[in-house]
């Protein structure tokens, strides 16, 4: 598999503000890659650099075997983009904006366009100024997804969509993946990335602090165990890698580091297990490891 996007040691400053501070990232062909981070982490800046709208201060950026800054126009024929904040022309209808953007890119798939308009329940006859935020977003999504672009760059694509539309969006993205297209999307909505992304990069303060599949990341983190036992559990605190232990009347709850899970479960077995639930770390917990105060000391690799 080849890299569609390859970024190394990317730096971008706005005056004295450092937006990207040595960012490394690679997106493989055919994958859905999620860029996850809080507001202001540098997600939009990264995407704008990939689009050649911003110029990097240093570092190398390669996309589709080209230089996003120098070969912008050539590369743009092969990609489609959905901005995070969609602004439309007040006196153009949504349908006109979709067609125009498609034509500017070099053509759009008419059948798919009509199908997407239908699926997203978009009224293409309304003027840009009358659309709500969610509907403006739909216009941009339809314009991008109706193209035959091999790479999709999506900046918080569903931030304004309702849950039903989000499901439609996820469906369409799965379909894109099956067609072999590469999708690079940013989000601070964890559940969405979790459902869609093959791989995830977590970005914080202009740096990618972790990349991998969700499974790989979970391996690195803690599992929460909730157990009911016949007799009260003792001696757990003596084991390695146990955190946040909370025990009361035959019920015990704790978090355990990935590599010590086996030992902990074996220990519980001695007290007669009646019920056992374990939660893999959610992305919230993954994020907390990187952004939460408690983890400030040990979270970063």
């Amino acid at each position, binding site marked *: 598999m080849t890299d569609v996007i390859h970024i190394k040691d990317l730096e971008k400053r706005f005056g004295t503000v450092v937006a990207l501070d040595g960012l490394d990232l690679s997106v493989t062909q055919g994958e859905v890659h999620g860029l996850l981070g809080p507001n202001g982490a540098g997600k939009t800046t990264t995407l*704008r650099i990939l*689009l050649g*709208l*911003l*110029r990097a201060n240093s570092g190398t950026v390669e996309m589709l075997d080209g230089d996003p800054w120098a070969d*912008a*126009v*050539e590369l*743009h*024929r092969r*990609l*489609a*983009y959905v*901005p*995070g*904040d*969609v*602004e*439309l*022309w*007040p006196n*153009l*209808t949504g*349908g*006109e*904006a*979709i*067609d*125009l*953007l498609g*034509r*500017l*890119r*070099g053509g759009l798939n008419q059948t798919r366009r009509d199908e997407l308009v239908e699926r997203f329940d978009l*009224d*293409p*006859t*309304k*003027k840009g*100024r*009358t659309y709500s935020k969610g509907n403006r977003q739909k216009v*941009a999504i339809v*314009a991008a997804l109706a193209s035959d672009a091999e790479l999709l*760059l999506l900046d918080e694509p569903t931030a304004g969509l309702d849950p039903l539309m989000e499901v439609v969006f996820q469906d369409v993205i799965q379909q894109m993946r099956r067609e072999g297209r590469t999708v690079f999307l940013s989000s601070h909505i964890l559940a969405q990335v979790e459902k869609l992304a093959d791989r995830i990069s977590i970005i914080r303060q202009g740096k990618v602090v972790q990349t991998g599949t969700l499974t790989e990341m979970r391996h690195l983190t803690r599992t929460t165990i909730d157990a009911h036992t016949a007799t009260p559990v003792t001696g757990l605190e003596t084991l390695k890698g146990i955190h946040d232990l909370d025990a009361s009347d035959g019920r015990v709850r704790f978090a355990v580091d990935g590599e010590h899970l086996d030992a902990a479960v074996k220990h519980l077995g001695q007290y007669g297990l009646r019920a056992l639930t374990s939660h893999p770390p959610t992305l919230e917990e993954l994020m907390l490891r990187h952004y939460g105060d408690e983890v400030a000391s040990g979270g970063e690799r």
Partner: protein
Amino acid sequence: MTSTVASPLTDRTIPKSGGPLTGTGILVRFMLRRDRVRLPVWILAIVLFTMASVVALPDLYPTVEDRQARAVLMENPGTRAVSGPGYGLDDYTFGAMLSHEFLSWVVIFVALMSLLAVVRHTRNEEETGRAELVRSSLVGRHSTTTAALLVVVGANVVLGLLMALGLGSLGLESVGWGSSVLFGAATASVGLVFAGFGAVTAQVSESARGASGFAGAVFALAYLLRAAGDMTQVGGGLLSWLSPVGWAQQTRAYVDDRWWPLLLSAGLTVVLAAVAFWLSTRRDVGAGLMEARPGSPNASKTLSGRFGLAWRLHRSSVIWWSLSVFLFALGYGTLATEIERFVSELSVLQEAIAEIGGTVIDAWLSVIVLVFAVVAAVFAVLAALRARSEENSGRAEPVLSTAVSKPSWLSSHLAVALIGSAVLMSLTGLGLGISASQALGDSEMLWRVLGASLAHIPAIWLVAGIAVALFGLMPRATVLVWVVIAYVGVVGWLGALLRFPDWAINLSPLGHTPLLPAEDMVWTPLVVLTVAAAALILVGLAGFRRRDLQSTA
């Protein structure tokens, strides 16, 4: 709150007196805070410009004969169309001249200030969604409109008082205090009426642009009615009395000092405000009374590519500018025969015209063409700077993420600026040329005026080039191009009259264009201007290619 069970909490938080006007006082202060620069600038600019023009009168018309020569000009219906109905002509004092000829110009700006301010505080707030935030708090149904009207009424009262004070304090012969107060009141009356129209159109249209445009069109209609009425007979005809602008003029300040026509303006203002309040109860917040018509679900063939987009964005502005320029040019041309007679009787203008050279008509035409050139330059800058607002609003981003390069995107807006301004100058030449050659019975004149107009194109392009260069190199400083426009305007309009030094005139791009048909044609400056414009444009394109895209998002 529809709950019938009054809890202690709701009793405390919702004042019993909460009516449709709750919160008006706070909103007034809020609006004043937001307009603390804008309104004072409008008011001071209008008052100072009027005062400056009045101060120049004794120099321009030093003798009674000069003034009477001017009065004779008012016998022409065309002249009355652009000035006033014609009164006080037997003894054309400075005061008579001031109220008869200036009022019609001053009220254009007063009306604009007022209707824009009302729409800005009402419909624009609703369109952006900020009104929702305000209306969700302790604010009554009619508070926003009431507050906006109070602010604009206040602004007009201040404007009227300052106008009265300013004019009265000049101590000019025949410009007394009492009449100055009437003049100020007449000025403000037009502002009040069009604040009322703004309040009404803000209810009707869903967009602020639409509401301002609608109210502006009503003003244009009022102006045309008055012009038509004043043309029919000296003193104003029936149509003059159908127009709020006509009412203001019929006060005949400094001549007859009639206050009663202002009762009509006051009455109409009250009616308009009442209509606005009534209409606002017939609609939802954020919605207009005019349903937004659905548009085309597909883009037409012409809406394709960057030039298709640029044309679509600039289309209505190009059409309106072209139409207005052509009609005004046509109108000015009809004055050609009067001008000859008028200027021959006026010593000061003769000197100014002698400086330009050629016959009186040629000199006058060359000055008029220059005025239109400044107008076309304003259009060119507005069109070029559209790129800046597209960039700022974030609308450029989706376009530039397609197969459109930054320079080619910028050049699509630039093309409208360059071609559009060339079209405007062609229409100037045609309009002015057709009517002037008709009036003078000299068919040759059409071609000479057309040539004179086209000669200004390189200088206008240079101004557009400055705008583009600023956009490319110093995007945050693009507003500076208005300084260039202001300079070009002042030098162009007043340079010859006020006898500016040569270097000051040469500093203006338009100062290098030969003033055809009065002067002889010289090609060198035109070639130099064109090359300089091209260089600036290339610099701007290269600068934009190299810089980051900026957007507020």
